[in-house]
């Protein structure tokens, strides 16, 4: 009896020493793929709106803003994705030592909170000096609303750690971005004063407001992948000539005839892809909107969203650097200037010609990268996907339907010919550049596979 009493007391003592009386359950998984991407898609829509409303965010500057936000979202969340590697150590001069180290995996970050804090902070930093008070308020409101919603599913301590990590990643990527050559370029996007090169084959102003071309030093920006510049080195444009039998003249005549004989459908295509006057968030924004739509309609999780936006972001940044390098290497005269001088002085394009040289087409280059990345993420490699691009419905366009991403990018490239904005060589070589960059972004970086 005494023995039994002693044993019972001993057991009671042991039990009293235990601090966690409940049964220990095996840890639940805490992968980025367990989280919804809804909130991140909303961030990207907000970024589109801010690009439209913020002075100085023209196509190159916009590609940079979207790109770094995409990179930040991935870098903040990669440690919660199985077998994912950080971009630090894989992309140009982003050193692992400069990045905050995520806490061990047994610390259960709320990945939604991590990404929310990182993206909010990066957006404030990207638009910085030109961010209106109203848009700053929108960013703050969205950040708080997401935080409050997420807080219901985690503890305050873990929420604080998650926010801290997200903000630390944003700060590190921002510091990386400062040295890329494009920092603050939105304050003087035309890099004025600038004296354009002159010559019979050279770009001349196409409107009275912009007498110098856009971002003439953009090619000096640091690419995210140096190898992209090799893949995106286009062949030389056709030799300039005013001879009627020359290939160059024929390209100009092709533009002229196309514009003269456009069908109403072709005029609509021109405007649809033009990312039209005063309204849209530039070609990069359009392609990001398509990504957002694809993520939504395939029920992609936060995992696929951060990977997708990072892939596209890196590729878009480098597409614009490479394209702008070609533009200023050759400084080629626009079709409108050539045609008015040598073919028909009364020639008018369908839409206004942007203020920078012709070769190669920015639209074609940037949609080329989109094509490759969408093909990788949303198809088995053949590019077949029935997409109805509704991103321009908000701007008064009917949705456009495609059954293959290559057909979509080809239409975007063709739209510049229909508009009288580009020669055919600008479009086709731009597409090749973009596809080269897109493929290289997919292969040169070790991305996590089979993301959900």
């Amino acid at each position, binding site marked *: 009896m005494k023995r039994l009493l002693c044993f019972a007391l001993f057991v009671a003592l042991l039990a009293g020493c235990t601090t966690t009386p409940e049964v220990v359950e095996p840890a639940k998984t805490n992968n980025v793929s367990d989280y919804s991407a809804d909130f991140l898609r909303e961030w990207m829509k907000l970024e589109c709106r801010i690009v439209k409303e913020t002075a100085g965010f023209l196509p190159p500057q916009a590609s940079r803003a979207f790109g770094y936000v995409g990179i930040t979202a991935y870098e903040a969340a990669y440690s919660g994705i199985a077998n994912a590697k950080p971009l630090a150590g894989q992309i140009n001069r982003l050193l692992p030592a400069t990045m905050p180290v995520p806490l061990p995996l047994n610390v259960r970050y709320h990945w939604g909170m991590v990404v929310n804090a990182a993206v909010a902070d990066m957006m404030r930093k990207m638009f910085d000096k030109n961010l209106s008070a109203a848009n700053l308020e929108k960013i703050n409101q969205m950040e708080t609303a997401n935080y409050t919603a997420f807080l219901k599913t985690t503890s305050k301590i873990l929420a604080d750690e998650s926010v801290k990590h997200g903000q630390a990643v944003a700060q590190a990527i921002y510091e990386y971005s400062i040295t890329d050559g494009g920092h603050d370029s939105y304050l003087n996007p035309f890099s004025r004063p600038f004296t354009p090169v002159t010559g019979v084959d050279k770009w001349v102003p196409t*409107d009275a407001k912009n007498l110098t071309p856009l971002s003439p030093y953009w090619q000096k920006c640091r690419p995210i992948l140096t190898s992209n510049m090799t893949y995106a080195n286009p062949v030389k444009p056709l030799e300039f000539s005013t001879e009627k039998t020359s290939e160059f003249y024929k390209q100009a005549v092709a533009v002229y005839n196309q514009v003269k004989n456009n069908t109403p459908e072709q005029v609509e295509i021109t405007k649809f892809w033009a990312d039209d006057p*005063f309204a849209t968030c530039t070609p990069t924004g359009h392609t990001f909107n398509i990504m957002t739509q694809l993520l939504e309609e395939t029920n992609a999780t936060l995992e696929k969203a951060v990977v997708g936006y990072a892939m596209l972001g890196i590729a878009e940044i480098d597409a614009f650097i490479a394209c702008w390098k070609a533009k200023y290497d050759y400084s080629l005269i626009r079709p409108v200037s050539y045609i008015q001088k040598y073919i028909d002085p009364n020639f008018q394009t369908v839409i206004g010609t942007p203020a920078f040289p012709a070769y190669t087409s920015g639209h074609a280059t940037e949609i080329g990268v989109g094509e490759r990345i969408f093909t990788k993420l949303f198809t088995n490699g053949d590019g077949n996907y029935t997409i109805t691009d509704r991103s321009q419905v*908000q701007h008064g366009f009917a949705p456009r339907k495609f059954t293959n991403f290559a057909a979509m990018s080809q239409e975007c490239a063709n739209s510049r010919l229909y508009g009288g904005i580009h020669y055919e060589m600008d479009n086709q070589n731009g597409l090749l550049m973009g596809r080269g960059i897109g493929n290289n972004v997919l292969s040169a970086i070790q991305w996590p596979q089979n993301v959900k």
Partner: protein
Amino acid sequence: MKVKILIGVCLGSLAVMSCQKMDQTQLEKDAQLMAKLECEARQLKEERFKAANDIRLMEDSLAKNKLPLSAAKSAEIDSVKESYTLRTGVLADKITKTMDSLFANSYHTPEERQQFDEATEKVLLKICQ
């Protein structure tokens, strides 16, 4: 027994038919709502492109006559652009939110969305000339 089964089948069919009818009514209602907004956006788009074209023609004529763009004219152009950007932004926001909400709540599959697009376009053809 047979009569009971027959009544059951009839009632079931009626329920399915009324449900389809309700869906059709909802589709028409949603399409009407979306078409109204899209019509506004299409009209604004036409205005925007016309304004851009007017600006372009004015600039072309200055360039042809080798005249500089005055600071006042430049400010006027900026103000026109800003006004259109804001108007377009507000409307775009409204359309995006409406479409997102309809898709999230009622039109989930690509087929349903395609049906919705077609219904909207049909209304647009009627109301938006």
